[in-house]
């Protein structure tokens, strides 16, 4: 069975500090990977997606970057946090294209920027 692990579970960071969030998917080779952001009680905004190792596409510009250094790993980062970066970050995966496949979400990282 496929599992998705996100880390850390929660972070409290200062404005201007760097950030690195990660997720690992086990039990599936070459998944499609996604990062989503959710304000408290708000909608899910797709940030990035990756179809294969080393290739990441940006969906929105939020002063964040993403990388896929390994087939099963997806990293979200920034060198300088803003207050607006606070929220819930969700990593997700799918077996194939989203029209046919379910999107499976990890348990998320709750980020508070002070």
């Amino acid at each position: 069975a496929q599992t998705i692990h996100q880390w850390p579970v929660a972070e409290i960071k200062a404005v201007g500090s760097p950030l690195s969030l990660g997720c690992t998917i086990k039990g599936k080779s070459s998944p499609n990977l996604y990062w989503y952001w959710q304000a408290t009680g708000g909608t899910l905004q797709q940030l990035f997606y990756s179809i294969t190792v080393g290739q990441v596409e940006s969906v929105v510009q939020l002063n964040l970057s993403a990388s896929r250094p390994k087939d099963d790993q997806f990293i979200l980062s920034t060198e300088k946090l803003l207050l607006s970066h606070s929220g819930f970050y969700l990593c997700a995966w799918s077996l194939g294209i989203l029209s046919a496949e379910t999107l499976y979400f990890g348990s998320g990282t709750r980020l508070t920027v002070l």
Partner: protein
Amino acid sequence: GDSVTQTEGLVTLTKGLPVMLNCTYQTTYSPFLFWYVQHLNEAPKLLLKSSTDNKRTEHQGFYATLHKSSSSFHLQKSSVQLSDSALYFCALNQGGSAKLIFGEGTKLTVSS
């Protein structure tokens, strides 16, 4: 551009009553529609999905029918339970792309 609209931000019901959560969409591509449910402090999970016009799809007592003529994919249940209290998102995939556009979400609160 493509979009998803959920008109109700908050729906409050007594258990046992029926519910309908509205979802309309706009796209120039062939639409693929989804309903995801997110319980408090949990990750969203797929509830329903459809790309077939006028065909009802069901899961866990919830059902929805994609109507391309009206660009709608409303979520319904005949009798809500306390455990149905959650945030419900309608989502649109743009014709096989890697993008999934979510609506603003509808918070359903069921009381006894």
